[in-house]
């Protein structure tokens, strides 16, 4: 083989290897984004999804001792029960949007390994966004300071 041929062949082999890596990487790690209705239309157990919806009011249960977090995600048409191990993240609350990553289980709930709470970028009028109960919280804690 000529010198040039050797270089071209070597280069092509490497490019093909990387192309294969990319192809297999995408097929292994692609995660579909679904709504509760889409998930419930065809739930495939143990396939990884990202499920997005609204955390339904009154559905949030949090057991600090066992780290069990459960809630219902809804898109208005269908709702999916979700369970997660771990404290609710900062941006997570009832009545707000959330995206969870995980899979559907045979027992009829969505097991989330990751909660991606959405940060809202909307403009808030100054100082009227204080969280409900925040003042009381600060008050109750102030009486109990450790430093």
């Amino acid at each position, binding site marked *: 083989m000529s010198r040039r041929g050797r270089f071209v062949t070597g280069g092509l082999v490497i490019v093909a290897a990387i192309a294969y*890596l990319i192809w297999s990487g995408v097929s292994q790690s692609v995660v579909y984004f679904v709504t509760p209705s889409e998930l419930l239309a065809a739930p495939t157990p143990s396939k990884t999804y990202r499920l997005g919806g609204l955390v339904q009011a009154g559905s949030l249960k949090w057991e600090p001792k066992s780290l069990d977090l459960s809630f219902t995600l809804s898109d208005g048409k269908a709702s999916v029960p979700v369970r997660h191990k771990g*404290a609710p993240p900062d941006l997570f609350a009832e009545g707000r949007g959330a995206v969870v990553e995980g899979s559907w289980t045979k027992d009829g709930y969505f097991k989330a390994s990751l909660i991606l709470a959405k940060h809202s970028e909307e403009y808030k009028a100054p100082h009227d966004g204080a969280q409900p109960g925040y003042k009381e919280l*600060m008050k109750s*804690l102030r009486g*109990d300071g450790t430093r």
Partner: protein
Amino acid sequence: MIPELGYGATVAAFVLALWGAVAAVASARTGRAALLRSGERAAVGAWALVTACIALMLYAFLTFDFSVQYVAVNTNRGTPFYYRITALWGALEGSIVLWSWMLSIYTLIVVVQYRRRQPELYPWVLSVMLGILAFFLLVMTIPAPPFERLTPIPADGRGLNPLLQDSGMITHPVALYLGFTGFTVPFAFAMAALIVGRTGEEWITITRRWTIIAWYFLSLGLLIGGWWSYHVLGWGGYWAWDPVENAAFMPFLTATAFLHSVMVQERRRMLKLWNLSLIILTFGLTIFGTFLTRSGIIGSVHSFTQGSIGVFFLAFLALVLLGSFSLLASRVERLRAEGVLDSVVSRESTFLLNNLFLVAATFTVFFGTVFPLLSEAVRGVKISVGAPFFNLVNIPVFLALLFLMGVGPLIAWRRASAKNLKRNFLKPVVAGLVAAAALRALGVANGLVLTTMALVVFVAGTIALDLFRAVRARRRSGDDWGAATWGLLLRQNRRYGGFIVHLGILVIALGVAGSQAWSVQKEVTLDKGQSTELAGYHVRFDGLSASEESNHGKVTGAFTVTNGRAGGHMLYPAKKFYPQEQSPIAAVDYQLGWIEDIYLVLGDFAPDGSHATVKLQVNRMVSWLWLGGLVLTLGAALAILPDARRPA
């Protein structure tokens, strides 16, 4: 008053930049010096006006002038002094002002440095730089005006995004943007060289220097970004393959490729076409990165259609790429290689491989970032490819690059003989294998760590061997060890600056491998006074306290950490409640160490302080990233110094 003044200054700066770009071209075409001087004065004027914009904006921030919408959105009366300054670049409009300002400064430096030295290239360089500046000033005029007036004037502003109220955000955007805008200079010189048809050597020297400078700032920006992510975001990591990170990482990769392949051009007069393509690509990626991060397209392709700024950037990017690549195509004849590749086992081919892998990594990052957007736009299916994809593809590529890092600097040009290979590589290869075997014997089973370790020791061995030989040679001429080493670093600052950068990357590679393999974490709810254990650390929850800071309330958890060796110390992770935000924001606390960091994030807690949920992490070897980064930037700084061997 300030909105009108600011808007006026923006429009005037735009007109000046545009006129300067046109005048510089006209002077190059007609040879009339007066036109060129007019273009220069326009460049100085544009710089002065953009500086005035910055000054006006700062003044508005410091005096709480909420008639400027940008000020009202990004600050409030409680915002501490420093963050009122950094709020300047805390959001889209202000960051474009910062970008324009830096670009106008680079333009000014080009005027001062090259107006006499490069009479042929200079008018075109000036024109390209002013043209790009004009684009950013146009963005400031139409789709993202920073001086938009807000009526009625509110009593107080909304406040800076709390996540940006951190010292990392003082330096990170500045370094990153100095890097991004810095790539305009090499791009302008490349365009000028192509237009004039002087694709010889001098533009390459200038371009290489400016690329190192921009590369230096970009690396610094990436590192500070990683540090910010680690100590502010509270997820315990430093790199998430987030589109915003990828946007800055892609030009870093192509610029790194250029800095290596340019040596082949200097030495062997080859790869001219390739090097020009890399310069164009790097500059294009900085524009693409800004498009990606600033158009809102990341959230969803649908948010892209809401604002016009994305369209501006996309159109500009298309113009830049079409224009520069067709210019390149028209000059192909002049860019023929003068040398040929002699052998597969040579420094040239090592550098070619290095470039192939760097561009492959760039493509991977590009693909992983853009693929979800394409899927949504074309098929209407929302998908995501996360960190697993990027890691799977890039880890082998980066390991290959590490290996080449050891081979490249020592292998012979043209054709390496068996003797050359044995002399330079036998000992380092043995050292690498011995190190991996020793670690294996010590019980390290992680294949990735072992491979990384073997490669790191191999590369470090080649650098040590080379340095040792060079110092020994100088010792023969009478210097002592210290003077010989010092003299070598200064006299061959480019070569040894490069080596020091390589050493920094080795340290970073160890940090990445170690932190990925050995970090552990757990989440637990503790009653007041209760302890838990993780990786030899005992962590006890001592209670909660509340405090009122200047612009937010804060709930702080007190935790005593003991690890059996020394007496305990306290860590205070907290949650901050900003009135303008809907949710609290976690503030992590940590104790950094060379081997491991202990890292605490306060989760949920009982309002009476009786129990709290905490995430504990023992992150191993993360500090090596910051150390490696420091070494890397020192090496880059050494390489930028004027070459001592030649008169500057």
